[in-house]
């Protein structure tokens, strides 16, 4: 076979070719050799000599296809409405397949002759030149040509009847009356609308959208609007939502089954509009009741329905916030008894857990709902029962931690405690007055450390780490320093006793008592100590220990002075004067008082106070604690006075041979909490003033409201100051001439350098 261009007789070749074309387009049997020959014919026509006959071939083919499709149309429309879809579908199946093959047969024409003339992609995207746009009569590849002819000759005349039949079919499917056979047909017909323009580079879906999608959406809209109103009339909200959800999922499946994928979001939107958005206010009212009664099932239906709507969830979130707040306040409103702190934290956690779970299960953990929970919890935790009363959360939470970290007999396991402490951080994060918490926590920690009441140092440390994570280094700085002191002291004690042993070898006497000491760094410990009136006379029995340790300490460090905190020291005394020996743990003052009776049997209070070097008032406190536990007797009975005589109770007996006398100062009074609050208040004022000065220094000039906003922003991490307090601080700073009001405006301040 020669590829050389030669003279070709068109009519003769076309006659033969036409036979094969017909065979191809009707999917008749075309032998391979024939196919090959015709393929060559197309080639020879295209390269014919002296003039290529491609254009003529194109025109004839077009003509042929026109006729063919018209014939098909006749055949299809003859069928009548009942089987129109079916007929169209089978014609299309055959034709689309055939045109595909035909396209192959004309490959040479397509590639060599037509490609050259086609507008390039760039021209289409950037706007074809006017000439090209106007003259749309350009030649198309044979496959495209076939489809175009189909569109014009077949779809255009039939579209109304086709579409209405399709809609009827889909409607049937919605009502559950569709037969499987029609499903394929409907799907195929709809696809033909897409396929027929698929070759286009731009606006591929125009035809589909125009002739089918638009009427389909309108029809669906009507259907669902009707469906919604019917449902509304005969059912309650639960059933309604259930049905709507079911409809949605069905419709989605239907989209997949019948439609082009681009239609799915439009259909969904259409459904939402008719079934949800149209009844939004009704759903919102119903939602209030659902939340009120925590109807999880209903809410989990409602959530996906409302979520896609722009303002769908907002009322739900508002209602949920209010509901949680209300539930929370109810949970913590009626607490009473000894363990209010435990009740408070645990009921708060219960509320939090409950709604957290609910949000996770029902609202898929939606962030907007989580922040509603946060908002509600923070409102509950910081709720002030009366306007003047401070919120007690900080104090209660600190007490809760204390009760967990303290040694206790309540058989809680370490893992238990760990878990509870970890959970308490959840509440901590909601507390506005973190500084108040810190004050209380530090005091309680100090007590635990000094009196060796900590359950476990690991637990203590883990808790501080958690607080640091939540609030930063500065917040736990002092707590860390307390810890460091403890380990430094442990070191010191070991060194001290080895030092003593060395000196014992050199002939020095031993102390004779078990001596241990905590050396605390001043300033790091929140120890509100009463000022000691006059020097306390340390019992002689202790003097040697004190001196030995001080000598040792000053050799270790320089430039330091030690102050003995006697109210915090404890001694263990063995009582030898009773029938049985008892071991009693007492505070240093009480110990000194008892030791006085080494030399005398009776002692007037006045004299005792003198020998100890303490005031009468202080002495009485200690005496009372010793009389209360029956170690001492007084005469005469009644109020203690300077003249009251004290004596040892020589008939003392106790079931236990080892016990502890409660120290007078260790009892916690309500004024303790009050002092803490007052000192927090003081710290806050300083903090606010410092913040104001910092802000003003960098801004130089600022309006009142802006200043207040910035101060609020800075202090947010540790506490929420009241506007009144900020105002007072601003005034104080004006008085101190750090800042001044500007001359031209009454609510503007400037920084005084």
């Amino acid at each position, binding site marked *: 076979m020669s590829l050389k261009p030669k003279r070709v007789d068109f009519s003769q070749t076309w006659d033969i070719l036409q036979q094969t074309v017909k065979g191809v387009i009707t999917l008749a049997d075309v032998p391979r050799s024939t196919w090959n020959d015709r393929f060559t014919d197309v080639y020879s026509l295209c390269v014919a000599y002296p003039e290529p006959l491609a254009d003529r071939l194109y025109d004839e083919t077009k003509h042929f296809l026109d006729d063919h499709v018209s014939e098909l149309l006749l055949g299809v429309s003859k069928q009548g409405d009942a089987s129109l879809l079916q007929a169209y579908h089978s014609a299309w199946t055959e034709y689309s397949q055939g045109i595909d093959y035909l396209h192959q047969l004309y490959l040479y024409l397509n590639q060599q002759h037509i490609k050259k003339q086609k507008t390039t992609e760039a021209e289409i995207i950037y706007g074809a030149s006017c000439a090209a746009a106007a003259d749309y009569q350009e030649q198309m590849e044979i496959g495209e040509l076939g489809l175009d002819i189909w569109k014009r000759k077949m779809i255009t005349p039939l579209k109304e009847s086709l579409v209405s039949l399709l809609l009827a079919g889909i409607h049937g499917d919605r009502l559950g009356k569709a037969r499987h056979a029609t499903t394929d047909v409907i799907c195929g017909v709809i696809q033909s609308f897409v396929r027929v323009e698929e070759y286009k580079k731009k606006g591929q879906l125009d035809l589909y959208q125009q002739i089918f999608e638009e009427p389909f959406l309108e029809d669906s809209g009507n259907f669902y609007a009707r469906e919604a109103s019917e449902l509304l009339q005969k059912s309650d909200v639960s059933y309604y939502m259930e049905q709507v959800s079911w409809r949605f999922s069905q419709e989605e499946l239907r989209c997949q089954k019948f439609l082009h994928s681009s239609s799915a979001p439009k259909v969904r939107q259409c459904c939402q509009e008719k079934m949800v958005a149209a009844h939004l206010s009704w759903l919102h009212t119903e939602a209030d009741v659902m939340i009120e009664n925590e109807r999880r099932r209903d809410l989990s239906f409602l959530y996906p329905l409302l979520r896609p709507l722009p303002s769908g969830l907002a009322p739900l979130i508002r209602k949920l916030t209010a509901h949680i707040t209300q539930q929370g306040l109810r949970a913590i409103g009626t607490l009473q008894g000894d363990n209010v702190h435990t009740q408070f934290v645990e009921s708060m956690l219960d509320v939090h857990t409950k709604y957290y779970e609910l949000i996770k299960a029902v609202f898929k953990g939606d962030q907007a709902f989580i922040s509603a929970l946060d908002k509600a919890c923070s409102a509950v935790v910081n709720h002030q029962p009366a306007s003047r009363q401070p919120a007690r959360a900080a104090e209660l939470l600190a007490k809760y931690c204390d009760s967990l970290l303290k040694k206790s007999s309540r058989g809680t396991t370490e893992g238990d405690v760990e878990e509870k402490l970890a959970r308490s951080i959840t509440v901590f994060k909601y507390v506005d007055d973190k500084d108040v918490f810190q004050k209380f926590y530090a005091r309680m920690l100090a007590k635990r450390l*000094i009196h*060796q009441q900590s359950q476990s140092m690991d637990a203590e440390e883990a808790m501080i780490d958690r607080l640091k994570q939540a609030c930063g*280094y*500065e917040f736990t*700085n*002092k707590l*860390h*320093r307390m810890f*460091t002191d403890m380990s430094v002291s442990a070191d010191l004690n070991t060194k001290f006793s080895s030092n003593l042993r060395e000196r014992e070898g050199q002939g020095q006497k*031993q102390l*004779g*008592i*078990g*001596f*241990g*000491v*905590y*050396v*605390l*760094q*001043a*300033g*790091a410990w929140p*120890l509100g100590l009463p000022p000691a009136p006059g020097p306390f006379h340390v019992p*002689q*029995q*202790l*003097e*040697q*220990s*004190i001196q030995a*340790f001080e000598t040792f*300490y000053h050799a270790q*460090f*320089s*430039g*330091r*002075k*030690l*102050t*003995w*905190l006697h109210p*915090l*020291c*404890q*001694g*263990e*005394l*063995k*009582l*030898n*004067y009773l029938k049985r020996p008892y*071991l009693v743990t007492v505070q*240093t003052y009480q*110990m000194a008082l*008892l*030791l006085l*009776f*080494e030399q005398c049997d009776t002692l007037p209070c006045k004299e005792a106070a003198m020998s100890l070097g303490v005031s009468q008032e202080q002495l009485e406190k200690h005496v009372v604690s010793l009389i209360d536990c029956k170690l001492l007797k007084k005469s005469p009975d009644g109020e203690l006075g300077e003249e009251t005589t004290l004596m*040892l109770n020589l008939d003392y007996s106790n079931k236990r041979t080892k016990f502890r006398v409660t120290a007078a100062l260790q009892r916690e009074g309500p004024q303790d909490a009050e002092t803490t609050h007052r000192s927090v208040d003081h710290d806050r004022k300083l903090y606010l003033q410092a913040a104001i000065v910092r802000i003003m220094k960098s801004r130089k000039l600022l309006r009142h409201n802006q200043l207040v906003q910035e101060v609020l922003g800075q202090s947010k991490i540790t506490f929420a100051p009241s506007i009144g307090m900020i105002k007072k601080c601003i005034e104080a700073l004006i008085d101190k001439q750090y800042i001044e009001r500007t001359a031209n405006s009454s609510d503007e301040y400037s920084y005084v350098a």
Partner: protein
Amino acid sequence: MAESVQDNVERGDGDNVKTENFFTLKKWNAVAMWSWDVECDTCAICRVQVMDACLRCQAESKKDFYGKQDCVVVWGECNHSFHYCCMSLWVKQNNRCPLCQQEWSIQRMGK
């Protein structure tokens, strides 16, 4: 007196001699507080208490992990005391005590 108590304790530990004293001190758990032995609690240079770290150290200690006492106190011959950090910056400009204007020389350092 103190010695006789001690003697008793030692004999008491032997446990076969009956003690004559009413009380025997077995154990003492003491608590003491240390502070710099200074006349003025505040560092005149940074206006922070000498027991706390100086302003600079406080700002930097955010990186530091535990509240180590790195910021010590220094005493001059004039017996005035400051944070060591503050004073070492100060003497770069003016080698006199900020409080009494005497020539600055270090008497001792806190440890």
